[in-house]
């Protein structure tokens, strides 16, 4: 798969350090599942964690710490975890519709999703996650549809799963991720023959309503 838009280095480092909100972690992981280059890049970032662990000052362990663990291990024999099963075949199928990290949330096929019409030509599928202050959702936008130009109320990440769009930054197709800061303004236009389906995480759930209402006004007028 040829991917042209990758994760920002700051996002790679946050992912490696474990500092991403669950909604963003799903989008980043879904991109990583599709992008060999970013998977390599994450290894470099994780190596920073390894180096930090090597240099970490030692904390005193509780008395009998190893003995306790040792007992757990003895009780653990026979566990199937020792020889984990081979990963399921869809995991390494780059043509799979839905990347593995997303499939536990929306199933394996983009064609079976339930969409809700937001405005003509724009559909949304909400994904509920606990413990997040951000929103995670999918959008399906019809060919030729233009979104009004908007800045972001916070960080936003968009991963393209089907179709493509074009904006001031470039053309985004399957596997590409738009990893944008709040100050970036853009006006995507879907330029594929089929609808463009993307996975989006945005900070602050309330913002989304703002963006949608801003989306709606000009579109409803068309």
């Amino acid at each position, binding site marked *: 798969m040829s991917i042209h838009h990758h994760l*920002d*280095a*700051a996002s790679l*480092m*946050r992912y*490696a*350090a*474990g*500092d991403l909100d*669950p909604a963003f*972690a*799903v989008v*980043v*992981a*879904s991109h*990583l*599942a599709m992008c*060999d280059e970013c*998977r390599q890049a*994450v*290894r*470099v970032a*994780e*190596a*920073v*964690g*390894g*180096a*930090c*662990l*090597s240099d*970490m*000052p*030692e*904390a005193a*362990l*509780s008395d009998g*710490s*190893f003995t*306790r*663990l040792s007992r*757990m*291990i003895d009780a*653990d024999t026979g566990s199937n*975890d*020792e*020889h*984990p099963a081979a*990963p399921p075949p869809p*995991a*390494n199928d*780059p043509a799979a519709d839905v*990347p*593995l*990290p997303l499939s*536990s*949330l929306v199933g394996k096929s983009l064609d079976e999703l339930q969409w809700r019409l937001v405005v003509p030509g724009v559909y949304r599928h909400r994904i509920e*996650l*606990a*413990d997040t202050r951000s929103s995670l959702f999918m959008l399906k936008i019809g060919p030729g549809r233009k979104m009004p130009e908007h800045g972001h109320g916070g960080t936003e990440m968009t991963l393209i799963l089907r179709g493509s769009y074009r904006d001031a930054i470039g053309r985004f197709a399957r596997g590409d991720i738009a990893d944008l800061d709040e100050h970036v303004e853009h006006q995507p236009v879907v330029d594929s023959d089929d609808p463009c389906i993307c996975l989006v995480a945005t900070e602050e759930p309330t913002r989304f309503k703002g963006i949608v209402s801003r989306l709606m006004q000009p579109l409803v007028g068309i």
Partner: protein
Amino acid sequence: MLKVLRMEEPTEDPGQKTDQAQFEALISAVAVQRDKSAFETLFVRFGPRIKGMMLGSGASQDLAEDLMQEVMLTVWRKAALYAPERGTVSTWIFTIARNARIDRLRRQPVQPYVDVETVSIASDAPSAEAEMITGQRGELVREALQRLPKEQRDVIELAFNQYMPQSEIARKLDLPIGTVKSRTRLAYKKLKENLEDLR
């Protein structure tokens, strides 16, 4: 003066390379022979450091001890999954500790890190080039970290040693989030350059 000092210092610390080779052998003994004394050696080395990281991130003594035990139990169970071409033993254990901490903080139906690992195991062919790099990567990354300008190193250490969120780092250092991001980016770029110098 600086030059003289540098000449006295070996460019690659042989002690550290031996560490990685030794850890690899220990992991392999755990994976293949289920060797408990090899495991205990790993425990003595990594347990106190894992606990230190958990304490640094604000966990109580009990929670830090508990998480450390969980991490080491995973090391025991999954030793066969350790792949040297993907990183050093320290890096592998770091990722297990990170995942354990996240799982404990939030009970989620999704496991993004585990899924990416699954894809990685299925898709990433080991390459001789990658293996050559990994043997020295641990020491190289540590060296590169030491050479970062202090303002970049501070940001990295707070993020990785204390699992401090970006927003808290910004507050603690009294910086805009954008500055924390750009320092993180610069640090990553610098580290990557250092690693690529080896190829």
